[in-house]
């Protein structure tokens, strides 16, 4: 039942474990926001730049309290535009850094998410989703930023997005988010929602030596040989930090392997495709799911975040009625597991996709299914969670 | 014997005229020759008046000229 969160694993020779100074080993009763903060510290993050926004603020409030006793920096910036780029300056100085926000702030951060993607700055953006659009429902849940997480900034780029469904996962998956960010040199969107962020549950924090941490992919090349955006075929360049002595250049302009602006179609093509391929070629390694009774299922319920817990009730009720219902919980929402859904679509009658939005990830499911299976959305405009009855109704309908 | 000397990187010059104007001893003038971009680079017309102060170098926005004192040879103004 417990998903194998190590599935999208490290393919490195060395194994690094967490710095004990940042790990609050023990059994805690903690909410998702707080657990996310602890995950960041366990992952080795010692820098956060934030701006208050409900329901995410507690993450950085806790970080502000914890980090001076662990050895790091928190700064509350004057707005999200600043926070989202301040953390990147810290990354290029050598830190693991993140920020935390919700809908309106996430919108403000979009330019800098694109900058992180373009400059391949490893970092984590936590979005504790709330009702929208605009100011919306500051204290109530939604899952309506899912498409924005993928497409919110301009241009062609890829990101990774993770969806925890419990405070425990807020801890575990935040570490995963940082690890994926370092491995692929990409901004990772940590898509929580207000319920998961504010629900309090048992969170087990293991000893530091049981927590695997991916270090910065720092170059060991000589100054003469180092190319800031050169790759050896694995599509992810090695990084250097300001102050190392490489005297390198980083720009958001389309650039060549030296990092120099080179605004021509061939360089654009090469760069942008590599940014895309470094993620899409690794979908199998990056994707994480929780699957249950998929084999022989007529209907598969695909869900994520808090909705997956409500859906569980509906799935169990459906099974009691004799229906063959499988569960597929998306832990990695982006990159979307096209191949997996396409293969599954050939074997099942229908997918049911409940979401706290008017239809976002369901579009991806439908697209990937390519007409081989029917796709049913169970939409909810947000502000609360689904009534399991509503999901059950659609499961029954889908199974007909 | 001039106290200084000037070197000009002709291909970088965009003929802005700063060096000609601000040389305190009027060593330079824009030539009638062209570089490959079509600009008239400066040339030294009064080499004997060059003090090697390198104001030309400091003014040049294109990093196309520099002067140094003859005694210290290479390396710009001390």
């Amino acid at each position, binding site marked *: 039942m417990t998903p194998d969160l190590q599935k999208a694993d490290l393919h490195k020779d060395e194994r690094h474990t967490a710095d004990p100074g940042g790990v609050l080993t023990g059994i805690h009763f903690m909410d998702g926001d707080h657990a996310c903060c602890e995950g960041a510290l366990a992952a080795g993050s010692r*820098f956060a730049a934030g701006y208050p926004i409900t329901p995410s603020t507690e993450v950085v409030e806790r970080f502000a309290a914890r980090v*001076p*006793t662990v*050895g*790091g*920096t928190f*700064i509350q910036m*004057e707005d999200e535009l*600043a926070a989202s*780029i*301040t953390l*990147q*300056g*810290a*990354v290029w*100085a*050598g*830190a693991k*850094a993140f920020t935390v926000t919700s809908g309106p702030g996430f919108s403000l951060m979009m330019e800098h998410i694109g*900058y992180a993607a373009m400059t391949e700055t490893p970092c984590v953006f936590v979005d504790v989703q709330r009702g929208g659009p605009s100011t919306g429902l500051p204290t109530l849940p939604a899952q309506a930023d899912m498409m924005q997480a993928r497409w919110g900034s301009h241009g062609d780029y890829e990101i990774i997005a993770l969806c925890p469904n419990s405070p425990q996962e807020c801890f575990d998956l935040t570490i995963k988010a940082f690890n994926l960010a370092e491995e692929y040199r990409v901004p990772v969107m940590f898509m929580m929602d207000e319920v998961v962020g504010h629900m309090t549950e048992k969170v087990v924090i293991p000893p530091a030596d049981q927590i695997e941490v991916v270090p910065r992919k720092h*170059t*060991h090349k*000589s*100054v003469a040989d180092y190319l800031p955006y050169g790759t050896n075929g694995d599509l992810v360049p090695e990084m250097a*930090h*300001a*102050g190392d*002595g490489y*005297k390198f*250049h*980083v*720009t*958001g*302009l389309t650039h060549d392997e030296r990092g*120099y*602006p080179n605004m021509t179609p061939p360089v654009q093509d090469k760069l942008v495709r590599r940014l895309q391929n470094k993620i899409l070629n690794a979908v199998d390694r990056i994707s994480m799911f929780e699957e249950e009774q998929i084999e022989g299922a007529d209907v598969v319920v695909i869900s994520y975040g808090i909705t997956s817990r409500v859906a569980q009730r509906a799935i169990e009720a459906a099974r009691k009625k004799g229906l063959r219902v499988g569960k597929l919980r998306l832990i990695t929402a982006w990159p979307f597991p096209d191949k997996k859904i396409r293969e599954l679509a050939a074997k099942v009658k229908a997918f049911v996709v409940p979401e706290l939005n008017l239809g976002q990830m369901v579009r991806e499911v439908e697209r990937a299914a390519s007409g081989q299976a029917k796709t049913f959305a169970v939409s909810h405009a947000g502000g609360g969670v689904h009534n399991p009855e509503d999901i059950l109704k659609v499961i029954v309908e889908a199974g007909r | 014997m001039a106290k200084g000397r*000037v070197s*000009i990187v002709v291909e*970088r010059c965009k*003929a802005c*005229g700063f060096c000609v104007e*601000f040389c305190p001893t009027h060593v330079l*003038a824009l030539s*009638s*020759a062209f570089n490959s971009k079509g600009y008239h*680079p400066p*040339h030294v*017309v009064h080499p004997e008046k060059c003090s090697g102060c390198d*104001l030309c*170098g*400091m*003014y*040049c*926005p294109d*990093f196309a*000229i*520099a002067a140094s004192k003859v005694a210290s040879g*290479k*390396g710009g*103004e001390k």
Partner: protein
Amino acid sequence: MTDSVNTDLVNLEVDPVVNPVEAFLRSDRMPHIWCPGCGIGTTVNSFARALIDSKVDLQTLALVSGIGCTGRVAGYVKLDSFHTTHGRAIPFATGMKLANPKLNVVVYSGDGDLSAIGGNHLIHAARRNIDLKVICVNNLIYAMTGGQSAPTTPDGSTTSTNPYGVFEPSFNLPHLVEAAGAVYVARWTTFHVRQLARAMAEAFQKKGFSFIEVISPCPTLYQRRNKMGDGLDAMKFYKEKSKVRHGAPTSEVGLTMTGEIVVGKFVDRDRPDYQNLMGAQYTHSLGDRYVEQPPVEQEPVCS
């Protein structure tokens, strides 16, 4: 005299003078994109001199720029340089400095980038007294995008977005940053190459938020649209109109289209910088529990 020069001969100089700025340039990217008579390159000469004279450790010098003509400086200097987003060089630089306080972080950007879209960050960084050295090249216009009005464009100027003349009051940047909390505020023009270099060198040694405004020509847009000649005409204008007034009250140094340009060092004061304040507060509140941020482990560079 002005007879035709054999330019080949000049290029084949046996023992050319080495320009001290060359050591700081990405020579493989020359010639640069700045227009004939643009003053940005001139400011870079002063910057290079300042680096040499102040003996700043180049390895720990990081340069951060924003978007615009001046923003392109980052791409031309041979330093750890970061060309970031429009208006956000200062917060990026803040993150860099706080994560590795050993770095000497210079922000090199234009008037539009720093005072319009970046205005909020400018005032907060000055307020906090973040240890940054900000060089603001002020060409009174948004040059890169074709000559639109900037908050610094003087009343009466013609721009592409004020084709009938600018009627908005313009910013007095030294006054703004002094009020916000900057500890070092100076203004020079690209005519004042040596004074500018000296000011930059002073700023590099100063702890806290330093701001140097450099008035610089934009011949293609500002000069041309306002029938003020070319870059050289602007330089002569600066020479004629500048008045050195060290310590002048910043409220009195506002610029007009054709009036006096007050230059000099206006503010040089001492205030604890952000990191000092942070360390002091944590020590006071946490005592022994305060764990200072460990220094960044610089990976040794293989030669």
